């Protein structure tokens, strides 16, 4: 009498696959970051090619406490900055813009002005070649060099 061989079917147990998959999805959903990866960029000049910018050769944009803006000493609204700069750039397209911010002003106020300056190619069809953001220490150093207290 021949013994009949039983066929044993090999199987991978997949019952817990759904649990593992959902755990992975939840992990990725919680730890992923999408939106906070964009912003305004600016490159700092290297020591070797730093041109000396004189205040009279530049356009001075000053952000005051509370968000008020002065351009070359005159108060202007945010929308009024670029038309003024456009007039100045017609005479000298290389004219740099110095963006100074009062220590008591908020970071958001400074960013709004910087964003406005960066939109020059779209709004006035001209490019501001240099936007300088000097720090307080740099301004104080310049003032002491010029003998201003």
């Amino acid at each position: 009498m021949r013994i009949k061989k039983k066929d044993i079917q090999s199987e991978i147990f997949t019952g817990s696959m759904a649990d593992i998959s959902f755990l992975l999805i939840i992990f990725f959903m919680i730890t992923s970051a999408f939106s906070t990866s964009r912003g305004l960029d600016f490159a700092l000049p290297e020591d070797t090619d730093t041109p000396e910018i004189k205040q009279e050769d530049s356009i001075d944009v000053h952000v005051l406490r509370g968000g008020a803006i002065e351009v070359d000493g005159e108060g202007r609204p945010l929308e009024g900055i670029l038309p003024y700069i456009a007039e100045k750039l017609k005479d000298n397209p290389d004219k740099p813009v110095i963006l100074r911010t009062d220590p008591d002003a908020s970071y958001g106020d400074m960013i709004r002005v910087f964003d406005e300056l960066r939109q020059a190619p779209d709004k006035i069809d001209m490019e501001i070649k240099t936007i300088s953001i000097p720090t307080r220490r740099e301004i104080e150093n310049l003032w002491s060099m010029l003998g201003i207290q």
Partner: protein
Amino acid sequence: MAIIRGRDRKDAAAIFTASMADIVFLLIVFFVLTYKVEVDRTRMDLPDTWIRIKVPEKAAVISISPPDANPPLTIRVSTGEEMSLPVSTDEEIVTFASTEVARNPNKEFIVKADDMVPYERVDAVLDALKQSKVKFIYLLSDQRTVEN
């Protein structure tokens, strides 16, 4: 012997789940491809801008917490690969940034600060980065819309 008639037979209701595995794996693949670890989890209201450039991956992060956070105006630094750590002085920022620049002279830095942070704090961070010879800085922002 009882015969089960056609109308007495009960069909168990079932949800078709055969395609669930496909959907789940598609979602996993999506998350794996778009996955990016958030090295700094400081919650804040970023300033809104129209211009937004994509910041490079693995850029170092310096964050300044909002004035109403607990503790307020805390500065945290991260290399971009490790979770952020708090620093207490501006000199520590200079040391951190200088070390990163020594490793990679073209290392990019992201400044992540709340909209309401006094500019004085941001100025101190920018000054520390300038002292450390950092070349590229990104000021993190949210998308500005016509509503805001």
